[in-house]
């Protein structure tokens, strides 16, 4: 049961968005974030919304998944909405009850802030839906590689990420085995209150840690046997190439960015 979890939320596919160079996708997502924070009015936000909708439509990621990605931030959205609704006092008062009042300006700000957060999450989940964690790590390593000059361990960081991604399923499988082994010895993992459950985790975590260290040591030896000696002089099999579609995506994004700026100037 634990074995079937998917890492991240990557959804394999072969849409133009999937095929974009991961570096380009990463940069464009950053541009979207800039766009969202640069937008000063609803018109600008609408431009960003159109951008996200186009992205989702082209990627063929189901709408249900898009809504699902918003689930974890429901509380944040509600909190932001309520806060803005009741604590913005400028503008015409529409409704009042003792200390609480709602103004038209408040409604506008609340809507503005909520759509900004929602679009932020939708835009960045489009990146994770269409890019596998490996490609993402790869893109980060390559984009950050200029930082190597100022002694930032970019390669080591990417290697750690890759190994972590590689071992998560293995360790989950192992956790499953240890849990079964402890259950077979009569430990009660699912019963009792919160403290009992936390205490029940100890006999699972300790063997898991011990075996992880053993694995780490064996892996290090195996890596050394395969001539691993850090990032120096290392080549990569997979080369990333930018294709015409990458340039097209960049141009399109820049157009939308221009649209947001225009909206800021035109509608004060």
């Amino acid at each position, binding site marked *: 049961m634990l074995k079937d979890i998917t890492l991240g939320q990557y959804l394999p596919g072969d849409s133009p968005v999937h095929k974009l160079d991961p570096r380009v996708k990463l940069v464009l997502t950053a541009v979207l974030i800039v766009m969202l924070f640069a937008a000063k009015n609803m018109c600008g936000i609408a431009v960003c919304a159109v951008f996200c909708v186009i992205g989702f439509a082209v990627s063929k990621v189901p709408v249900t998944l898009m809504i699902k990605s918003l689930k974890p931030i429901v509380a944040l959205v509600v909190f932001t909405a309520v806060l803005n609704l009741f604590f913005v006092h400028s503008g015409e008062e529409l409704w009042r009850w003792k200390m609480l009042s709602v103004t038209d300006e408040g409604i506008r700000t609340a809507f503005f802030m909520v759509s900004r957060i929602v679009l932020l999450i939708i835009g960045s989940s489009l990146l994770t839906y269409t890019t596998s964690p*490996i490609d993402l790590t790869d893109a980060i390593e390559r984009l950050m590689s200029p930082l190597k000059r100022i002694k930032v361990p970019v390669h080591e960081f990417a290697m750690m990420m890759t190994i972590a991604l590689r071992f998560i399923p*293995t360790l989950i499988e192992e956790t499953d085995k240890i849990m079964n082994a402890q259950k077979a010895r009569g430990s009660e993992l699912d019963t009792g209150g919160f403290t009992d459950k936390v205490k029940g985790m100890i006999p699972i975590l300790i063997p898991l840690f011990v075996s992880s260290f053993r694995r780490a040591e064996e892996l290090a030896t195996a890596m050394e046997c*395969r*001539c691993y000696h850090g990032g120096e002089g290392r*080549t990569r*099999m997979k080369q990333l190439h930018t294709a015409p579609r990458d340039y097209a995506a960049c141009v399109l994004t820049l157009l939308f960015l221009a649209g947001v700026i225009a909206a800021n100037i035109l509608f004060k």
Partner: protein
Amino acid sequence: MEFFLDAENVCFSYVNDAEEPPSRTEVLKDVTLRVKEGEFLAVLGHNGSGKSTLAKCFNAINLPDSGTVTVAGLRTDDEENLIPIRSNAGMVFQNPDNQIVATIVEEDVAFALENMGVEPSEIRRRVDEALRTVGMYEYRMHAPHKLSGGQKQRVAIAGILAMKPKCILLDEPTAMLDPKGRDEVMSTIKMLNREQGVTIVLITHYMEEAAQADRIVVIDGGETLLDGTPKSIFSQVETMKNIGLDVPQVTELCYRLKKAGYDLPGDIITEEECAQALFELLTKRGE
């Protein structure tokens, strides 16, 4: 330079720094072992006999306390030789899970070549070739954790093979596999030895696997005890039993029948030989 792998008077001990004063465990005591190019050598010995330690001496993971180890004429104690030695004497370990680095099969096979700084197009070519050789080409885009044990171990072998080593050291590669996986790995190893002339050093606990080698070395208590062809080693049933090792089942069968007074040759190590010998024995009695 006649021998490809050459360990001369090798002594090795593990030092435990955690204890005060540091304790030393002597694992190899004056071991001399020479392996010719293209040979298929099986190393037998029970747990803690030092066979894995010896294998790790051959690719400069372990450096001997005294004595010398050379691989293709290169000394392992010279830091300069590290990469040539390791790319010439690749090592496959027991647990396939703990030696696969990448999240995609073909990326893992490419790992060693990427470390060696090979050109990307050349890496691609060699990775495809290695995956085809071990019969895992169709799985090149799979995630390693979704493969069976035998398949994972074949991916690990492909990862070594991509370096085009002259020799592969295998440290109990079949210990964690089911019979089917064991067959897959053994036939891959034999194919590499027979068809591509790769020198094989196979450390194993399975006598049936050792019987398929050209030569067997038995290590006990950090010393080489026996050295010879499978037939000459397994015909010494008493000696093998005394040091806590087995002989192939068919050898055991013939040994017991012989003890019970039946006239059988003492050097039977394969099922075919055994069947033939029994057939002859039975037809003789029938007459």
